[in-house]
């Protein structure tokens, strides 16, 4: 009797734990907050009959470890353009059948042409949203608005500067050094960037790791200048009544772009493609733009669902702005040199 109960309990446990992976038509997406927001996903669930379970990542570094530790859980992921190539090289994702994505040809050509989402003539990523790694300052802290990366090295701002805890700090310091080919830096240039960051270190209040953390730092009056994911943290701060201004420094800004990728061997391919089509349609494109304040990859859908003001403010009709961004590139085997330099800065 006891044994029966025990076995029954174990069976029930096995069923409940296995259920999400087995249920037909349930998509498990590993993505950024906002990319599967219920404000537009519930409509998709209703219309398609596919259920969506979202797990959120805090950084691009979360994708590989999560997928490496065993498969079969996730169907779709959204790494940024500096991480997409790694997913392809790790053999975690499968080629897309672009014929099944009706809006494919409306995506900005600049994004479709990126190396990071292709291999051997096949596409592995569907461009979704993009933006700049802009810089940001608190209005009440400056009489003359900052215009340069050098303002984050200004000794007068000691203890009031924040910088993203990411290898992109190397890109920032390299540009300040005048090394503009930031994704192909030589060892000497990386060493120079590392030195520059060490010079800046006494001025740093905190290397910020999450969007919420940066917002808290501004809110608590701890920092007055930093880099930021354009549109996102400034929007959150404005909602809190804190006046901040974003700017693109004269040394230029990096651009990022996130793509949807289909995890290799997913049993939910039909739902996955329905989901991809929805995300590129006005429902998905405006859904994410309204939640996160990011620009989107399909200007045709954007035009259909955005007000003219939103369309303009998100630079959807501004190819010059897009061209001015240094869009992230996969670093390949140079990746280690960059991360090692950044880790060395943090270790000091």
């Amino acid at each position: 009797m006891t044994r029966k109960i025990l076995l029954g309990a174990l069976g029930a446990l096995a069923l409940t734990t296995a259920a999400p992976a087995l249920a037909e038509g349930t998509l498990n997406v590993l993505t950024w907050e906002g990319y599967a927001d219920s404000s537009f996903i519930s409509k998709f669930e209703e219309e398609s009959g596919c259920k969506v379970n979202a797990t959120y990542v805090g950084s691009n570094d979360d994708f590989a470890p999560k997928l490496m530790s065993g498969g079969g859980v996730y169907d779709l992921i959204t790494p940024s353009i500096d991480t997409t190539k790694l997913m392809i090289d790790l053999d975690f994702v499968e080629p897309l059948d672009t014929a099944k994505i009706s809006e494919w040809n409306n995506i900005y050509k600049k994004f479709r042409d990126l190396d990071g989402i292709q291999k051997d003539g096949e596409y592995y990523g569907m461009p979704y949203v993009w933006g700049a790694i802009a810089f940001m300052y608190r209005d009440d802290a400056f009489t003359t608005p900052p215009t340069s990366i050098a303002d984050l090295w200004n000794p007068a701002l000691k203890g009031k500067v924040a910088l993203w805890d990411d290898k992109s700090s190397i890109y920032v310091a390299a540009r300040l050094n005048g090394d503009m080919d930031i994704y192909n830096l030589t060892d000497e240039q990386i060493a120079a960037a590392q030195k520059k960051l060490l010079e800046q270190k006494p001025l740093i209040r905190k290397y910020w790791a999450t969007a919420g953390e940066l917002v808290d730092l501004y809110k608590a009056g701890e920092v007055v200048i930093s880099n930021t994911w354009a549109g996102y943290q400034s929007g959150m701060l404005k909602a809190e009544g804190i006046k901040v201004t974003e700017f693109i420094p004269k040394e230029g800004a990096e651009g990022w772009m996130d793509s949807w990728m289909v995890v290799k061997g997913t049993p939910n391919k039909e739902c996955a493609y329905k989901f991809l089509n929805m995300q590129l349609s006005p429902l998905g494109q405006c859904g994410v733009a309204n939640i996160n304040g990011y620009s989107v990859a399909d200007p045709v859908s954007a035009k259909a669902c955005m007000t003219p003001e939103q369309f303009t403010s998100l630079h959807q009709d501004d190819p010059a702005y897009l061209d001015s961004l240094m869009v992230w590139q996969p670093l390949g085997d140079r990746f280690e040199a960059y991360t090692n330099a950044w880790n060395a800065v943090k270790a000091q």
Partner: protein
Amino acid sequence: MSHARRNLSGVMVLGIPLLWIALFMLLPYGIIVTFSFWVKKYPTFVPAFQFGNYVTLFTDPQYVLVLLRTLKISVLVSVASLLLAYPFAYWLVFRCRSAKLRTWLYMAVIAPLWVSYLLRAYVWKTILGTEGVLNSFLKSIGLIDEPSSIFLYNQFAMVVTLTYIFIPFMVMPIYTALEKIPANLTEAAADLGMGPWRSFWTVTLPLSAPGIAAGATLTFCLSFGDFIAPFLVGGPDGNLIANVIATQFGAALNWPLGSALAIVMLVVVLTIVSLSDRMERKGATGGI
């Protein structure tokens, strides 16, 4: 029948813990040791048998620097916890007259353990921040004119937070050790003409040494492996060894180097534990 059943229960009693140790301790350690000899190769890493990861750890100054910093922070946390916990436990055991008050105060130390670690660490941000509770208090009593930023996002904030979080692990063993000291020993010391200080130094303190050793070991090891405090209240110079390990397994995707670091960390902790174990045993046998 009953013999067989006794055998079976014997197997269950011993077998399950052994299986648990093998499955959840020895096997994972074995995997980490194996990884530590592998080698990083884009996009991930490949099997190998070489000591390159260990060589990197001891030749690239960034790792030694972080290791030394982690040791420093852990020692400071242990010492701060001891200085606060010992007088408190001593007062509870020997000076507090009301048994009820004693229970209440003891529980007050233990109770925070039921509250989420993250929450408790987070609270220190609101206390130590530039516009935090401490600054507004200092301003209100006129000690400072401008809010100061020296309390948060540095090593001081990490030591304060970790001490606060781990101090119950210092109070508990010291309290237990002090409670076990028979009252007649200090009375005998007083009868033989010892002053209270001498009797404390020669009787009470040595007899409570095992409690101190246990508390110091716990607080040291817990701080040594911490990576939340640097993240929440630490500043640009606050990276600890566990943060570096997390980076190696995440951002750098260099599991071999991360594993080698974990092994070094394990060796340090095991050394501390065995030293303290020896000290405790010495205290237990040599004391009385």
